[in-house]
């Protein structure tokens, strides 16, 4: 996902990071300022838009009824999909999801699923036959780096303000009634991404930093401060010591974000 970056610029980023500084004046462990706007899409059951630096991601949640998976008759269904919309970056092209958008969707999915953020047992209408299906659609509107954290945060925010239609069963048919109840949530996972640049760990990489990074690691932290999902990405490596250090940073940053959002 690269837009071109001159060698001079690449070198500059590396040298600054060696000196503990960054292009936008942050320290290596500073997270960018972000704002989350909730419920802006009235047609969707839940929605949230995050602006993390200039990264802009909109998440819409649609809730429909459908069949459960045969192996989990007593759980609702949650699916996450991500679209790298072409208007968000010169490097995004129209077409079916590529591996970058599939990876993004699966990282967001894993954070929500493994932390059991949504109480899926409360989404059952009739065991084995009818359940609520929750579609989480991540829509990237502007790419300025760290789509993973932005998407994960916006997805949880959108689920938090999502409303479930009330229903009643009439002659074996599910009829929706007027009114809504909130989507049952158990946890609010927060995903923190850390890049390795020049052998240094850098929190929340912006877009130019993403183009010089050797590797990145994303960790989802649940309400208890435990880690519930990890994904290392890009063609570089970490030492085991760096991973432990990254996990400590991720927990600190997640706690910071949690406090700010009051989750």
């Amino acid at each position: 996902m690269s837009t071109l970056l001159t060698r001079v610029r690449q070198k500059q980023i590396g040298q600054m990071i060696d000196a503990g500084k960054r292009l936008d004046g942050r320290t290596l462990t500073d997270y960018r300022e972000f704002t989350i706007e909730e419920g802006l899409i009235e047609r969707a059951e839940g929605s949230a838009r995050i602006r993390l630096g200039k990264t802009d991601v909109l998440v819409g949640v649609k809730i429909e009824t459908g069949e459960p998976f045969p192996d989990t008759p007593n759980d609702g269904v949650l699916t996450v999909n991500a679209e790298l919309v072409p208007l968000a970056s010169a490097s995004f092209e129209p077409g079916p999801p590529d591996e970058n958008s599939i990876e993004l969707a699966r990282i967001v999915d894993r954070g929500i699923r493994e932390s059991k953020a949504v109480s899926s047992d409360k989404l059952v209408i009739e065991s084995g036959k009818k359940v609520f299906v929750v579609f989480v659609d991540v829509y990237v509107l502007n790419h300025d780096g760290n789509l993973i954290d932005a998407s994960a945060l916006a997805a949880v925010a959108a689920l938090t303000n999502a409303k479930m239609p009330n229903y009643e069963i009439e002659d074996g048919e599910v009829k929706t009634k007027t009114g809504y109840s909130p989507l049952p949530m158990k946890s609010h996972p927060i995903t923190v991404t850390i890049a390795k640049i020049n052998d240094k760990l850098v929190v929340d990489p912006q877009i130019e930093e993403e183009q010089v990074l050797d590797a990145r690691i994303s960790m989802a932290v649940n309400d208890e401060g435990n880690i519930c999902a990890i994904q290392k990405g890009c063609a570089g490596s970490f030492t085991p010591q760096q991973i432990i250090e990254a996990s400590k940073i991720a927990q600190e940053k997640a706690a910071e974000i949690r406090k700010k959002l009051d989750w």
Partner: protein
Amino acid sequence: MSEKPEKLIDKKGIRLDGRKADELRPLKIEVGVLPNADGSAYIEHGKNKILVGVFGPREMHPKHLSQSDRMVIRCRYHMAPFSVQERKSPAPSRREVELSKVIRESLEPSVFVDLYPRSGIDVFIEVLQADGGTRCASITAASLAIADAGIPLRDLVVACAAGKIDDTVVLDLYDAEDKLGVADVPVAYMPNLNAVTLLQMDGVLTPKEFENAMNMAIDGCKKIYPIQKEALRAKYMAAREELKEEVEE
């Protein structure tokens, strides 16, 4: 899953398949098994049976994907329809697309890609039978197949998972433990460079448990590494024997 056993690990620390907590499944690795591929390897890791073929370095198709200063690595992880309990559609699933990506990224740090500008290699991974931990076994075999193709490497990449079942952190989860367990942490590692090239996790672990699991997985990698190297050596020993016989004739 039909019924969940009450315990995945008993009081004596013995798992459902009879292993101890830090015990690997039996491994069998062979190098140079596909005549048409430039490099190949076959691995049996427990009931996993995985075949890897490498083609290249060769000209990239389509050409615009080639890079002027380096070789491009492409990787396809694919599961055979008959490899799992319920037939899997042969079309690539989202899981397979993601795994292809993370496997490729786990192998890339080991390859001297700048030695082969404008060219590419294709790594084709076919899971013939799956029993949990296929991505790790795939990486162990794929690294060997790349070495078998004669491509210079910084180190072999070897992979192994650790995880948590019931309350215990254990090595190398098999299918049932993966599905019913608490967490799974696959790790790929280059032992000579002390570099982790793949790390994923799903499930909930405390920071301490995570550290234990990662270290246990790395220890598992270190145990597989000599078996992996021996498989590569065995192929060349066999070739040498053949050559000797020819000379004697």
